[in-house]
């Protein structure tokens, strides 16, 4: 019996698909990657929730009863509620103009749209200070008219818009380019105007790419730290978003509370990932079913 098995083994080992590695190598690779992911991705996530509840559920809940925290949550939602729709509209119009038409400077435009992804968020905040700050271009005029942008909510909204506007566009442009304009052209020949064409023909085709972009845009908008840090002024209860509030709590050694707020954002991040995966899956299905 053992002899038969021994005979089997070398045969199994020799038989290997031409395009794959030996099992040993595969296992080693997978283990290394799993360990790497566990260390760098999973562990931080686990720690957030662990620390959030380290002082128990009561402390966790009490954190959100605090006025400053509640305000931070409200502000974060407000900023996202303004920035995301604005950037979505921008993303759609930019994707339409770039993917459906040829014109000079098109690739320059695409590069320009990618810009905020390359700039440090702090530099992003900096340039807005240079325009709207007390010593900035519009500084004197704003002061004269008693309008506060920097160190106030409008500034936060502006930099958030700056930092997150590429996401929807970047999700849509390659998608709409790949899909081509055939169906829209057909719609045109059938007498549809621009709006009808968009609503009835384009939108159904791009809906998953749109969802994908919106989710990423939202996640970044709610989580933005560097740029908002520069323009916010960190005024407790007034100009702190959740990420900034986390920083304050952390610096004041209220670790459990800091992580409590962080855990909400982490949960949001996980939710975003889930929706993103769902959107990708649905999109793949759409591709298979309609072959477009």
């Amino acid at each position, binding site marked *: 019996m053992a002899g038969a098995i021994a005979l089997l083994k070398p*045969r*199994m080992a*020799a*038989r*290997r*698909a*031409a395009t794959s590695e030996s099992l040993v190598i595969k296992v080693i690779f997978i283990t290394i990657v799993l360990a790497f992911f566990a260390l760098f991705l999973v562990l931080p996530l686990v720690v957030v929730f662990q620390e959030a509840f380290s002082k128990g559920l009561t402390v966790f809940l009490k954190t959100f009863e605090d006025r400053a925290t509640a305000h931070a949550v409200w502000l974060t939602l407000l900023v996202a509620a303004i920035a995301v729709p604005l950037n979505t509209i921008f993303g759609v119009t930019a994707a339409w103009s770039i993917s459906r038409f040829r014109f000079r400077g098109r690739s320059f435009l695409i590069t320009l749209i990618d810009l905020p992804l390359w700039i440090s968020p702090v530099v992003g905040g900096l340039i807005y200070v240079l325009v709207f700050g007390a010593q900035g271009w519009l500084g004197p005029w704003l002061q004269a008219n008693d309008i506060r942008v920097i160190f106030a909510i409008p500034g936060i909204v502006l930099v958030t818009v700056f930092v997150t506007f590429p996401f929807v566009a970047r999700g849509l442009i390659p998608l709409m380019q790949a899909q081509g304009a055939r169906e829209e052209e057909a719609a045109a020949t059938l007498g549809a105007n621009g709006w009808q064409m968009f609503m009835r023909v384009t939108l159904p085709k791009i809906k998953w790419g749109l969802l994908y972009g919106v989710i990423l845009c939202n996640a970044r908008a709610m989580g933005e730290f560097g740029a908002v840090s520069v323009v916010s002024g960190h005024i407790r209860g007034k100009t702190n978003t959740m990420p900034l509030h986390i920083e304050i709590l952390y610096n004041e050694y209220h670790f459990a509370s800091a992580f409590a707020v962080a855990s909400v954002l982490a949960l949001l991040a996980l939710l975003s990932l889930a929706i993103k995966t769902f959107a990708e899956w649905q999109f793949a299905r759409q591709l298979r079913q309609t072959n477009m």
Partner: protein
Amino acid sequence: MSISIKNVSKNFVHFPALDDVSFSVEKGELVALLGPSGSGKTTLLRIIAGLEFPEIGQVFFEGEDVTELSAYKRKAGFVFQSYALFQHMNVFENVAFGLRVRRSADRPTEEVIQQRVQSLLETVQLPEQARKLPAQLSGGQRQRIAFARALAIEPKVLLLDEPFGALDAKVRKDLRQWLRAFQNQTHLTSLFVTHDQEEAFEVADRVVIIDKGKIQQIGTPNEVRSHPANAFVEDFLGLAPAGP
């Protein structure tokens, strides 16, 4: 080198690809595996090459059981339907590849490689293209380079998967004749897969007709045409009894 297939069966996840297939190819023969798409002929070829493994059955090269041997040990030259040339290497390096990856004990010197490759390029009538990239060649030229590359390793058997499928009619005809002439000259045992019966009959010594994973008939082109074994063969070859 002779090839012998014994009772080979292969299942894919959704369907049985081959069902108890047995036949042999004599040394120096040029045999066509003929059948409609989905008949299992390519699967069979890949099993012979070591690119797939059968659930049941055995493959013998000159009497030696190679069923469990991996592709890179079998020394069966394979020409893919899509050529599968190495895009980032020029023609010379593509053809020389099989020689360069040999174990240092068996590896020929640079001079020998140069000679061998040059001579192969001449055999396939593309002596001037050595420095070109595959992307710069036409379909027919790429096909011939794929040939040259497979021949470089001095294979004992040559396997071709629908080698002329992606080419236009004139190029196909030329290459077919070239293959036949080449085989006449070298007597290299060759097995090729096709769904084109004209091609099979024109080129092959014997034809193996396959449908739905089962062998329908084996014989010389004349034998098969004059004595079709069953209704499928009749139908496939268009040999239906005289109509109205």
